């Protein structure tokens, strides 16, 4: 496809919520943004003159008239540059390309009750959930976990919500009794969770222990691809070799080398970037491949995963 998919936009407003959280309102430059379903993300592209950054962020809100999209960006300590750049240089007027908009974390519309669990930045998909669940009169509860110093910021974010349904906690989930609350949920409840890896692991294990069927526990891993040991890929179809540096992803290295590699979410969540591995051993960091697929050793998601061996040969 010759036509570049997406929407040209620019930063309209920036608000600091906490020292590490900033809200960006993006304004469409040409046609308006499409309506978005709760839980959607947008892949944003922006550049500092030297480097092009491509990151996916949950869409917190799309304005009724379609002119604005709102995202909240966390300054991650392990940021490879994108979030850091937005925090430092993301001022009104900065051009941003809104690429693919998709939803990997939708509300289950047939659920009888929705239990939303978030920690830190993990609240962002639920800000769009809450609006929808309230407007359709659904049965839902949100428990949000954060550090004590961030409490006022999150309470402010949730100020317009139905206060009998949203709770902000500064203790750990295990300390407030979340395991008991999960235990007491009815069988028809769907649980959704999003937050840092430690939180995710705890909720995953606890819901499993409480007997939630896999189809009733839904999660979105906020995956910031981390760097790692440099390695080299060999493109079997052309014989070309592409070096992957310590601070870039395999996908970025392929794009830099003008290789037409598939991709969508850029966060190891959708599976669109799967490529066949012909030789070498992958270091899987995604949330998509099944155990069997990992064991087969012949597929890799280029957006987050790396290599355990010095070279990887790909069917590209």
């Amino acid at each position: 496809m010759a036509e570049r998919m997406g929407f040209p936009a620019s930063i309209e407003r920036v608000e600091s919520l906490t020292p590490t959280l900033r809200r960006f309102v993006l304004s469409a430059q040409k046609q308006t943004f499409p309506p978005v379903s709760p839980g959607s993300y947008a892949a944003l592209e922006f550049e500092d003159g030297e480097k092009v950054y491509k990151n996916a962020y949950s869409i917190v809100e799309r304005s009724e008239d379609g002119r604005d999209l709102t995202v909240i960006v966390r300054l991650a300590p392990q940021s490879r540059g994108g979030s850091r750049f937005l925090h430092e240089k993301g001022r009104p007027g900065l051009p941003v390309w809104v690429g693919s908009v998709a939803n990997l974390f939708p509300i289950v519309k047939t659920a009888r009750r929705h239990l939303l669990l978030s920690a830190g930045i993990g609240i962002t998909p639920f800000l769009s959930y809450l609006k929808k669940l309230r407007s359709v009169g659904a049965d839902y509860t949100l428990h949000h976990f954060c550090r004590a110093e961030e409490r006022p910021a999150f309470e402010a974010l949730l100020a317009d919500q139905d206060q009998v349904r949203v709770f902000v906690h500064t203790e750990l989930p295990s300390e407030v009794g979340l395991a008991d609350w999960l235990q007491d949920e009815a069988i028809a409840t769907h649980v959704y969770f999003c937050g840092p890896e430690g939180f995710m692991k705890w909720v995953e294990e606890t819901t499993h222990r409480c007997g939630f069927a896999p189809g009733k526990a839904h999660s979105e891993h906020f995956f910031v691809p981390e760097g790692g040991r440099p390695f080299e890929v060999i493109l079997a179809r052309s014989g070309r070799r592409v070096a992957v540096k310590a601070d870039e992803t395999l996908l970025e290295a392929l794009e830099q080398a003008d290789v037409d590699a598939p991709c969508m979410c850029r966060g190891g969540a959708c599976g669109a970037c799967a490529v066949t591995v012909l030789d070498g051993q992958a270091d899987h960091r995604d949330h998509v491949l099944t155990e069997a697929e990992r064991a087969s050793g012949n597929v890799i998601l280029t957006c987050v995963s790396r290599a355990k061996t010095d070279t990887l040969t790909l069917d590209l």
Partner: protein
Amino acid sequence: MSGQTHVRDSYRPPFHVENSEETILRFPFPFPEDTYMYSMNVEPHVRGGPVEAMSHTFDVDEHYIGECAEKARILAEDPKRCMVLPHMRDAEWDFLELGMDSLSSDYPGHFTLKKEGNDWRWENHLLNISQSFVFGDEATLPQAPFEYMARQMQGDFTLHDQRENDLWMDGGMVTSQADWSLKFDMGMSFRQWHAPVPKASEMGIFDRGLRFLLMLQYGRPVRRLNWTMTINPRLDTSPENYMIWGEDRASVTPENVAEKVHLRVELQSLYRLPRSNAILFAIRCYLLPIKDIMTVPKWRKRLHRVLRDLDPALASYKGLDLYRSTVVEFLRPHDDGAPLSVGIQPE
């Protein structure tokens, strides 16, 4: 397409459906090669394509008024041909918006849409409909939004909710189907509603197809062609009415084969709907009798080769067993065996 002002087609006895030369040449002939087997024949649904039928989001042709009238008749006889589960409300509005936006921009002479915020005015000049309504407020339309729009479009439509890494048929309007039933398939998952199809499952087609569709993105619709054969120009070959049309299959003779036997092609297109995250599956049916296919040398030769060599399991599944040999015998003298170009274009 021009000059349509009244119902002139009849899709039930006494049958009367005539195709102009333009309609014949814009037909989406389904065979790019001389043999046929299932494949992931999915491509982006972009403007342009080997035949004119693919050049709009939703194709409108000279049978528009006749097909809408037949659809209205079927719905009056059997209202349950249109069903939508309550959790698909957002998808209904998504569908109405997609239909009105694309029809009015693709065919401005036939359809007009004016929007002021949520106050919309829709005019369908072919069916003499004009309607002011509030987008999002069902009470301002004469029917629910999906039904309202689907009645004004050729072809069948189903709405699919996405959950648990699967697609669920949770709504639709189905009146021109090739022997499947919305009443039966409602609420089924992707693999469940495809269960009757032979071979494709072992070939891994459904696993790959589902994986692909779960990632379908807004603004990037895709399309594929599917085909079967139908005796007489009947749009409604439903299981519900099998007692009416089933016996037609035994009525084909060497004398009537060119008139009676139709190649039935579905131009299927799939769209991610933005508000609901649902998927719209549009199934537009084209019926072309053998006598019309005969006028295009490439198509009549290729149809002969495909039918002659078709896998028996596929032929049975498509219901061709009673008359396939009669069609092949009829076409054989008109195929000189010359090599044909790859692709579905008439040449």
